[in-house]
């Protein structure tokens, strides 16, 4: 099952050449991928731009713009997305302040009020 939070406890870890974290859609339904504008991740004050994020949503993999190129691509509400980011040094073992701002287009809200921005900050642990 998922954590209630957008940023999931499971999934935050070093990877070859960077690190990754998992996000759930903090909304009540899944979305066509084209409605997702992107996510800005910050770790200990270091910000990672939305266009540098590599997404994995189930079988879908790649930058968001490539995933959304497929008209049938969706982010289901009960599937956490893995956000991969490049970083020269691995994150140190121990605590890190992790923030994410997820931007999404809600068609039923006037465009001048969009995108809707979900923001969250959590203290997560790199355990190895």
């Amino acid at each position: 099952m998922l954590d209630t939070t957008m940023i999931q406890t499971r999934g935050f870890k070093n990877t070859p050449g960077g690190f990754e974290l998992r996000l759930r859609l903090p909304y009540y339904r899944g979305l066509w991928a084209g409605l997702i504008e992107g996510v800005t991740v910050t770790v200990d004050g270091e910000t990672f731009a939305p266009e540098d994020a590599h997404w994995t949503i189930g079988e879908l993999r790649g930058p968001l713009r490539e995933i959304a190129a497929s008209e049938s691509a969706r982010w289901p509400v009960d599937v956490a997305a893995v956000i991969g980011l490049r970083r020269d040094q691995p994150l140190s073992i121990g605590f890190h302040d992790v923030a994410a701002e997820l931007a999404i287009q809600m068609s039923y809200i006037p465009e001048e009020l969009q995108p809707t921005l979900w923001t969250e900050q959590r203290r997560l642990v790199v355990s190895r």
Partner: protein
Amino acid sequence: MSGSLEYGVSLYSYTGEYGVTMTLDDCIEDVADLGATGLEILGEAHIEDYPNPPTAWLDAWFERLDRFGLTPTCYGSWVDHRRFPGRDITEDEAVQQLETDIRLAARLGFKYVRPKLGVVTADLEPHPVWEPATLRVLDLAEQQDVIICPEIHWPSVIRSKVVDDYIALIERTGTKHFGLLMDTGVFQTSMHHRSGGVPSRMGRGSARPPITPVVPVSDLEDVLQHVVHVQAKFYEIDDELQDHYIPWAEFLEVLVRRGWSGFLSSEYEGDYATGRAADQLRRQHALLRTLVAKETS
């Protein structure tokens, strides 16, 4: 004229629990357990691999309806006109989206399909594609035996151009496959501020949503003949079984007096604390059934 009210639940109510503490199985079992007979879902939330559920999912769907004695009521759908970055959807694409959901809803046994339409102006004018696209799918709705029913939902009000336009479409075409869905949040007497969930805000600019007037329940009288389904939106029933946000007694008085028949489909939209949805739904059903018993006795 004597109507019959039935009780249902929309799985939207379990938003804070779904995928966190409750599976789809749990949600559907909970609906039956609390004594409801009507089941409402959101296509894009609750159907695995929407819009193409695997056979195993379909089999499980019908098996559950049967085991729990539940009737599918309304299927929530969306027409996301900003689905393709940089442009609005075309009329053909809107028709395609509606057709997809009508067919899928009918296949699952639903009688009502609620398309949520995009808005184009700050005063919530729907995207103009709604009318031609709707007209083009009325035949399919008839063939699939479903009624398309856009939702009157806060911050929209009953006395508005959009509702007038919906009714005009019904009167002009004489269709039996288009109606209104009444979300009781429209009648909220004060604003509930939900706790829990992930904080969100609208946009990066300074624009803010319009202030919404309180809608008197009496406005319902004008449109009730077109209302085919009620989403019994609520936020909190307190420890005395009182709701301080939605005037249920007044609302139910109108439905009973007018002999309205259909489902009251609960939409819990209150605080997200774990376990709260299941408890609040039971409180609401206890309250609604108690009030209806008084009205009809």
